[in-house]
Every structure is written in structure tokens, then in C-alpha cells.
């Protein structure tokens, strides 16, 4: 499969011509540059990270560029993410980042999955068994995302205080699920709306119950939509900062919050360390996006290329 896709891509290069392909590569590089700088910084010593002009070339290439532009790569930042060593020689201390990474993955993964399950079923209902005033309901669902987070946070904090959800996994997962639901419902409804009703009628005539129609006929047709919705939800949840800052406790802290708390300390902002955390933080999202990319491409273009 992958191989076939790669071959097709090669053909597309032929069609677009090298000129356009290179132009596209240059533009992509400009977009990617900030991320690239972060990844490079993650491999720098503290002094290199502060240097102006920025040192962007590993010293393996010092025969190519002047010395003041090169740095010697180190992995010490990555070690420091998880255990903090002291110049005084005291025993290294656990930073707790392994827990924070687990929290981020667990909370984002669980809430996106939950939103996907609930949202898909709800979307199918809205699409196939419309209520009186269906559009009003859909609109109301969306209004929950119309206010800036900073406005919503106060009532949410009060609710969490009263219910005792503050600082718990359940609390933050429910909150993120609720955040992802409107988007999931709207996305999935548009995918269900696109499907041919005749196909479902045919399945009914062929002796299928409504449930079997949903699982066997409808779901396989919206896999691309599921993938796209999941990735968007995942990115939003993964990067969420404000609610995580105020509603997670020491045990349930996510990476964005923990990351912000490494800023400061005896030697100012430790850019190398920060960049290393960010680099690690990027990996899960990149992996997910990479594995879903075939589905994703079909999903984000909605119905435009289907059929």
C-alpha cells in the first residue's frame, strides 16, 4: 500500500515538474523553520543556545561554514528532561516528566477517543433521525465553543470545586471530551450526510438491523472522517494549556503545564532543556499524523474528491 502510494507520488512529481516541486519544498521549509530551530536547539549546550548569531550547523560540517556558526551536538538536554543533575554534585533528582508525558498521552488519547465514540453516535442520530428543531440543537452545541476559554474558566472552576473533580483525571478528561464533542459532532455529521441513503436502504432490505447498518455499512465509509476528526481533536487537546494549568493537580499535570514551570531558576531560561521537552512533545503527534496521513488527506478534503 505504502509503496504504491509512494509510486503515485513519484508520478505526481513528474506531472508538476521539478520547478514547482522545489518551490513547494522551499515554502514548506520556511513553514517548518521554527520547528527545525527548536529541534536543533534541543541538541545544544546552554552557552550555544544563547549565542548570537544563532548556531544552526552541527560541528561535523565545520569544514563548510565558519566556526562561529557551528555547535557541538549533545544529548544532555534529553537526559535532563527526566532527571535533574546538580553542579554541586548532589544526587540527580527525578523531574517527574515521565509522569507528565504519560498524563498528556493518557488524557488527550482518552478524551479524544471518548469524544469520538459519543460524537459519532450523536452525529449519526442528528443526521439520520433528525429532531424537531434539529439545526437549533446543533447550533446550541456549537455555542459552547464560541466563548474565549478565559471566560469559561471561572464557572468551570467553580463546578470542579463543588464536584471535587479538580486535580483528577476524570475531571480533565470529561472537560476535554466536552470540548472535543461539538467539533466531532459537526465533522462527523457532515460525513454521514454525504453518504448515499440508498446504500443504507439496500442494507435494510438485505435484512440488516439499524445497528448493523451503522456498524457494517456506514462506519467503514467514514473512516477517513474519523481519522481527520481524531487528529484535529488530538492536536487541540495535546496543546491545551489554560485549563490544564488551573484544573490539573501535581499528579495529573500535563506536559504544557510542566514545561512552563521549568522556565526560571538559577541560570534564566534553560532554552536547551525547553527545546528538548518540546521536541519530545512533538513526537507523538507526528507519529499519529504520519500513520493516519492517507486517511487524513481524504478526510480533510471532505467530499470534494470522493466519488
Amino acid at each position, binding site marked *: 500500500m505504502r509503496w504504491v502510494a509512494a509510486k503515485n507520488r513519484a508520478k505526481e512529481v513528474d506531472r508538476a515538474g521539478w520547478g514547482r516541486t522545489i518551490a513547494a519544498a522551499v515554502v514548506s521549509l520556511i513553514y517548518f523553520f521554527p520547528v527545525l530551530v527548536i529541534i536543533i536547539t534541543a541538541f545544544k549546550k546552554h552557552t550555544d543556545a544563547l549565542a548570537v548569531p544563532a548556531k544552526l550547523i552541527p560541528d561535523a560540517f565545520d569544514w563548510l561554514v565558519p566556526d562561529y556558526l557551528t555547535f557541538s551536538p549533545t544529548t544532555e538536554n534529553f537526559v535532563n528532561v527526566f532527571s535533574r543533575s546538580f553542579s554541586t554534585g548532589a544526587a540527580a533528582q527525578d523531574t517527574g516528566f515521565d509522569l507528565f508525558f504519560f498524563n498528556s498521552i493518557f488524557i488527550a488519547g482518552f478524551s479524544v477517543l471518548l469524544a469520538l465514540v459519543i460524537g459519532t453516535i450523536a452525529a449519526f442520530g442528528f443526521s439520520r433521525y433528525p429532531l424537531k428543531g434539529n439545526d437549533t440543537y446543533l447550533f446550541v452545541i456549537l455555542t459552547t465553543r464560541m466563548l474565549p476559554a478565559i471566560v469559561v474558566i471561572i464557572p468551570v472552576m467553580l463546578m470542579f470545586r463543588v464536584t471535587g473533580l479538580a486535580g483528577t483525571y476524570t475531571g480533565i478528561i470529561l472537560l476535554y471530551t466536552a470540548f472535543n464533542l461539538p467539533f466531532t459532532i459537526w465533522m462527523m455529521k457532515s460525513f454521514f450526510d454525504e453518504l448515499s441513503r*440508498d446504500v443504507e*436502504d*439496500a*442494507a435494510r*432490505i*438485505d435484512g*440488516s*438491523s439499524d445497528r448493523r447498518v451503522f456498524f*457494517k455499512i456506514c462506519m467503514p*465509509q467514514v473512516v477517513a472522517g474519523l481519522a481527520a476528526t481524531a487528529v484535529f481533536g488530538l492536536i487541540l487537546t495535546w496543546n491545551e494549556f489554560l485549563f490544564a494549568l488551573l484544573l490539573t493537580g501535581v499528579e495529573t499535570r500535563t506536559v504544557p503545564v510542566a514545561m512552563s514551570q521549568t522556565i526560571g531558576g538559577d541560570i534564566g531560561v534553560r532554552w536547551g532543556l525547553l527545546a528538548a521537552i518540546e521536541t519530545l512533545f512533538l513526537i507523538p503527534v507526528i507519529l499519529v499524523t504520519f500513520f493516519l496521513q492517507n486517511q487524513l488527506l481524504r478526510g480533510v478534503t471532505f467530499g470534494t474528491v470522493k466519488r
Partner: protein
Amino acid sequence: MKSTIELRDVTKNFGQFTAVRDVDLFVDAGEVVCLLGPSGCGKTTTLRMIAGLETPSAGDILFGKSRVNNLTPEQRNVAMVFQFYALYPALSVEENLTFPLFAEHLSKSKRQARVADVAEILQLTDILNRKPSEIAEGEKQRVAVARAIIREPNCFLFDEPLSRLDVELRESMRGQIKEVLQGLSKPTVIVTHDQLEALTMADRITIMRDGLIEQIGTPHEVFTKPVNIFVASFIGTPQMNLLGVELIRCNGNDAEVVLDGNPLKFGVEAIASELSPGEITLGIRPRAFSLQSESGKDAISVTSEIIEPMGAETLVHARTISETEIRVVVPREKKVTSGETLHLRPDPGQTLVFNKHGKAAW
């Protein structure tokens, strides 16, 4: 139990709009009935009610002797071929064919045998592993038919099964479907707006207009004895000529009318003598004229305008003195030029008479 389909006074309203009105229809086991009519006349709605995809607003639907109004599509056990085939896009051809067998709890080997059987009949053996998006239109059509005949349903329903195929494919599929259906003694309803399809495939044709049934009859009956002007002009190509004339008198089998001021005599069915003198409409098929050499008695004089060669025959569009259009089909050997005056004598045995309300007098 003998399987038959019966509709009794079936009506379907969508809000204020009545899509199907008081339809009575009986389809016997092994019989093929075509629903024919212009777009929007309620053919699909009727079919969907039989399948259980729509609930009738009034009236009863019976399979055999039992009323099925309240049964779901899965309980009715019908097979239907949709206008756009409605194959399951995410499943392979083979999985499409096995899908209806799910409810029958067959062993795997039996299932495979059934699939192999229908795949053989409809020549699908080579494409069993492909997805619907990877096969040609004609193959999709065959898969849809195969999926319908793989079970043993109470009846077969086809919604314009051939409308998306090209002419050649349509002809061969028509034959194939007919052959397949002949082997199965089930009632079959085929919806179409292609009259050739109806005339060739049906045992009986039901002609609908605006939700009402206008006529039910064998292909021969609806062609030779249409009950009204609508059916007469709907069935048969080129379309039947309809001439408004003044009836002078009708005596036994002889009628005398005035067309454009010229008296015209011809033979009609005896029953036409019940018509009182006045405005009537004559229906004459384009092939039911004989060409006269000169303007004689009982011939209509027309001027030819457009000549359309149709292969074996030639279609001539002509006009009478009073500008009424007349279509006439002449043999290919007869060379007609535009602007030429023709003298047409209606074949007495093939002239239909409609009263001033458009109802046939036969």
C-alpha cells in the same frame, strides 16, 4: 405459499403533497409488471412502499394473503435493485454478494457455493475481489442483480435498473435479466421510464401519471388500445399523431369527420357510434398511414418539412394546411424531399378515436 404482491387503494402523502393516489395493483407469481410513467409520477415511491422503505398513508399491501404494512424491510424479505445500484462501497464484490446471506446463518461452504453460483450466472467470477469503485458501470449493474437473486426473496423490485447503461449494454442486460427472472417464479416489479424496456420485459405494463394509474395491460393492449390520450401519446415511438377533428356522424363502423374543412371517412370500432357529433380527437400512429399518389378521397394533404432518416425507415415531419404537425414514417425507398406535398390515408383499422375529454372510444 404462492408469493404474489397486491396493492389495495394505496395512497402516499408527503405532507400536503400526494405522490401516489389509490393505487390498485396485483402481481402474480412469476409475472413481471413494469411501472412506466414520466418523471415524478410516483413510480419509485410505489416501489419503496412495496419494499417497506416508505409506509403507505392509506391502503393495504399484501404478500400472498398476509398484510405486510407494518413489517420492516428486513421482515418482508424482498430483493431490490436500486437506480444507482447502491452497492456497499467499503465491501468487495464478494462481500457485497454475501451480505444478504447474513440473516440466513448458512455454513461458510454453502455461502461460498451460492456466491459462486450467482457469480457464474452473471459473469462476475473474475471481479469478486474488487471494490465497487474499481469496476465498470455494467459490472456494477450485474453485481446489483446478483445481490438481489442470491437469496430467495418473496419478490423482486427493480428501480430503473438499466437507465445508467449505454444502449448496447442495456440491450444485453435486458435479455439477461429477463432470462434470470424466468427461472424464478416470483412476482417482479420493474420501474422504468423507458417504454422500450417496458414493452420488451413486462408481462403487463402499468402506466402512471401524477400518482394515479392510468392503465394496466399487456404491452399489446396498451399499445393498441390505450384508454386515453395520455397513454396513447406516451406509448410508442415516434409519438402518435393527435388530430382535433369535427365528428359529423358515426354509423356502425363508419365515421365521417371534417379535418381542415375536408370531409374524411374511415372505419372505427362499433362502440365509437355512441359518440355524439362534435369535437373529437383522432389518434393515428406514424406508421399507420399509406401514401397516396394524388389527393383523393379520405386522404389528408400535408407539406413535408423535416426529413429524419432512421435507418430502415424515414421519419417525416409534416404540416397540414391548418398547421397541425403530423409525423409519418415511410419506407426508406420512398424518397421524400422537404416541401413536397404528401397525401396520407389513415389505415382504417389503426385509427383511434378519443372523445372530447380525452377518453378512448373503443
